[in-house]
């Protein structure tokens, strides 16, 4: 996911930069600018329609199914997470592979960010831990290993030291 997001962003930034460089190279006066009159209006119309269409496709593709959907029923492993300055309290830290796990996340003081990183240090998912509220996030681990929980919402002096570990087993 992250590599794709980076690649798309860099392409979009490069396209913006390319458009500016092209125009700045064509500052000399000339009779026929493709960015004037009816041609500009047509280009603008194409951008608006194109952006609308692309936006619709992105919205449908990324919102269906709902990204925050949480499975229920038998076979789902619940984990209750409570954050406080500056530690994580989880009611279980040994988790199975191949089974949906639902994290019920809250805080006893300020806002924290519950972020789970794979053994290679890649962020897999996150949710906010907020006092008075329980945010739910679901994940199915596919690889065994030692996963780290880091705080992703600034919470004061030892924010960077607020860590925990999850041991994900090799069998479901």
């Amino acid at each position: 996911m992250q590599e794709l997001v980076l690649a798309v962003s860099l392409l979009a930034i490069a396209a913006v930069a390319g458009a500016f460089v092209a125009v700045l190279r064509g500052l000399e006066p000339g009779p026929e600018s493709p960015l004037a009159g009816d041609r500009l209006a047509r280009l603008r119309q194409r951008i608006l329609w194109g952006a609308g269409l692309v936006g619709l496709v992105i919205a449908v593709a990324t919102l269906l199914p709902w990204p925050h959907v949480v499975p229920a029923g038998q076979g789902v492993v619940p984990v209750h997470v409570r954050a406080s300055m500056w530690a994580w309290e989880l009611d279980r830290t040994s988790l199975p592979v191949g089974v949906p796990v639902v994290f019920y996340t809250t805080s006893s003081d300020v806002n924290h960010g519950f972020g789970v990183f794979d053994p290679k240090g890649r962020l897999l998912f996150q949710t906010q831990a907020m006092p008075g509220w329980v945010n739910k996030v679901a994940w199915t681990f596919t690889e065994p290993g030692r996963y780290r929980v880091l705080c992703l919402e600034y919470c004061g002096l030892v924010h960077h030291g607020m860590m925990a570990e999850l041991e994900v087993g090799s069998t479901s």
Partner: protein
Amino acid sequence: MTVHTVAHRAVPALEPARLGLVLGGLVFLVMMGLGFLMKASQAGLVPLEPQLFYEIMTAHGIGMVGTAGLTGIAVLWHFLGRHVELDDRMFWTFLGLFLSGVVLILGGIFLGGFAAAWTFLYPLPALSGGVWSPSVAVLYLVGLALVGVGFLLVHLECARSLRAAWGGLSRALAWPLLLRGAQEPIPPPTVVAAAAVTIFNTLGLVFGAAVILISILEILLPGVSLDPLLAKNMIYFFGHVFINATIYMAVIAVYEIVPKYSGRPWKTTRIFAGAWSVVLLFVMAVYPHHLLQDTVMPGWALVVGQVLSYGSAVPLVAVTTLGLLSYLHRSGARLDLPASLLVLGVAGWTAGVMPAWIDGIIAVNKVMHNTLWVPGHFHMYLILGQVAMVWGTLLWLARGRGSSGLARTDRLLLSLYLVGGAGLTLGFLVAGASSVPRRWAVHDPAWIVHDLPGALFALLILAGACGFFVKALPGMLAAGGERTG
């Protein structure tokens, strides 16, 4: 109806907006220095204790946001004053409140140890884990409130003068032109932009003031408390609207100055008026994209946050960016340093919006939120966007008439700033894609590979910016310099 324009108003010997821009430029340099310090600390080059790191982080954040606000509103005031009668006493009052607030904020941070980040996310100011005292939090929040009241006064004066000159804010927004296709006279782009910003930033400031007040009361009166989710909504509504307002105010300089080079006046068309009306709505409605990982939020609000994140980029690209390119292309414009920085400002803003809206996709946000991806995109549209526009305005106000093109030193300064800005922000994005968290005083050894180049690029930005400031200062301070352009 009669519209009073002030094309050649008498300019006082010391124009407050110019002073605001000079002060802002100076503070930008200090804040960039603090930014370099943080990167150097994460890279292991400069030893900073976490307490000091987080104090600097808080000062850097509030300092940059506040100064972007100060410079943005100075640009708005300076150029709006050409079209409507503004009472300079209101801007002087704003400057007084702003500086008083800054004293309290800096005292709270560096004397009292306050380090709750600029977003003061409730209830962190009141619950510091014993690091700072409640009275210090009150000091900081009162300072913030003073600054906010100052901005509110300026916007109320803008609203008053726009209503007086145009017979209502809807006319200043060019809604008759938008809805009926005709309006006489048609408000210039500066008036349309100022009207829109005045409306949304006033609302943002009111929400900000409310949550600050409740935060203060909670500390002083133990029985008072606020729902953390409601507080988060209010803070991000205020914060999102305010930081966006800084860019939408600075772009007024592009509308006013670029035509001096292109010879093509920036016009208010139906599509221009429509774009600003869309901005007026979207900039307020999009804020839930800051809460995409709060799953207790109503689903529809998160959908709005995602969809409008994308939608907000459309008027920028289709109207402002395309408009600038069309006004410049084959115009014969000879760009000097100020004009180059203004053009860079629109380019950087547009480029920075790309990774921002992508981060607004809920599924992407799940792995990018609160990583260095976030400072990656907002530094891009601030350093290479808003701040570049402000440097361009400062240099343009300081220079004599006529474009002399880009001198060798100008090219050097511009290159330093551009390479530094692009390097730092792209480095942030790469680090974010590598899952490096933001706002961490201590970095894992594996992350330092991202920090070392970041520190170097931050130095390049600072060098370029120092050059801009030194070049602009004599002209800005000279009595009788170019005032109305």
